[in-house]
């Protein structure tokens, strides 16, 4: 399964995601006024069936977050995921303490959607820029539920090849962890492969 991409290509994907997530972390850091600690991106190539097991092992039971579809040289969906019980606290950090509890609750979905919009676009745009391609992103959609519901939102085709790029992040001064996941559709793997090949050829020609 993982041989869909060569070792060089896979290494390139990790490096590009590192750059993209670095940009996203910088954006998040500015929004929450705190240092964002990042894990090295971990890439797994899995089928839908095994993705459930992976998600169950990796993610908190109750999730809140944002999904955003993308299409262009690669098609798929990206997700920003938080433990659901931390969601309101995150909103409070972002919109400030001066709002009442009911106002914060009212803004929860909209705030998460906007946060996802900023972070997921940072990663995807950085990827597109480096590979000299273009990606169109849909409007962000906030959700809450368990990992199964999230997988249903992310994978709408049975034959989806899931390239799960998982990055853990946390804030240095606050107890908040989150995850970014990118699901690449099997049918667009050829476009991704071509873009990576062009990028690697350019590097080798220099």
């Amino acid at each position, binding site marked *: 399964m993982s041989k869909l991409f060569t070792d060089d290509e896979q290494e390139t994907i990790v490096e590009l995601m590192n750059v993209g997530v670095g940009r996203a972390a910088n*954006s998040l850091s500015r*929004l929450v006024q705190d240092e964002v600690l990042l894990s090295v991106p971990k890439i797994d190539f899995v089928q839908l069936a095994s993705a459930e097991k992976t998600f169950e092992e990796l993610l908190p039971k109750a999730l809140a977050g944002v999904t955003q579809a993308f299409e262009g040289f690669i098609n798929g969906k990206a997700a920003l995921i938080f433990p659901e019980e931390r969601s309101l606290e995150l909103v409070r950090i972002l919109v400030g303490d001066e709002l009442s509890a009911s106002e914060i609750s009212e803004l929860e979905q909209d*705030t998460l*959607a*906007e946060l996802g*919009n*900023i972070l997921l676009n940072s990663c995807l745009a950085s990827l597109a*820029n480096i590979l000299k391609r273009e*990606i169109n992103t849909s*409007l962000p959609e906030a959700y809450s539920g368990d990992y199964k519901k999230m997988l249903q939102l992310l994978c709408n085709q049975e034959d989806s090849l899931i390239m799960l790029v998982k990055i853990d992040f946390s804030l240095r001064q606050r107890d908040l962890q989150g995850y970014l996941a990118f699901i690449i559709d099997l049918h667009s793997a050829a476009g991704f492969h071509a873009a990576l090949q062009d990028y690697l050829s350019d590097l080798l020609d220099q």
Partner: protein
Amino acid sequence: MPKVQRLLLVDDSRVARLTLKHLLNNTGLELEIHEAGNADEALEVFQAQQQAFDKALIDYNMPGRDGIELAGELKQLQPDLSMILVTANIQDAIRERAANLKMQFLGKPVDLEQLTQMIKG
């Protein structure tokens, strides 16, 4: 007394509008802000005004027509309108499209100093 600048702020996200208004209120500039949640609303607000706008701050990714399509329509109505595309989509391709319409480009999250300079300029 400095002239009050009239701004049109277009973003489908209420939180994004709140954030931007909060930043605009911290620029130290005299601003009159009008809001819209999508391209149609923006055109309605625009056409209902007696006075011309000085600047429009427009999100890119919105339901219906995107920010660049809206900018093209506003340009038809007011060719000298100064416009800023405010977006999380920081791709070079989007920057180029904005530049083709002579729009300035402001990536999200918005930096107060950069915003202030653009509004002043």
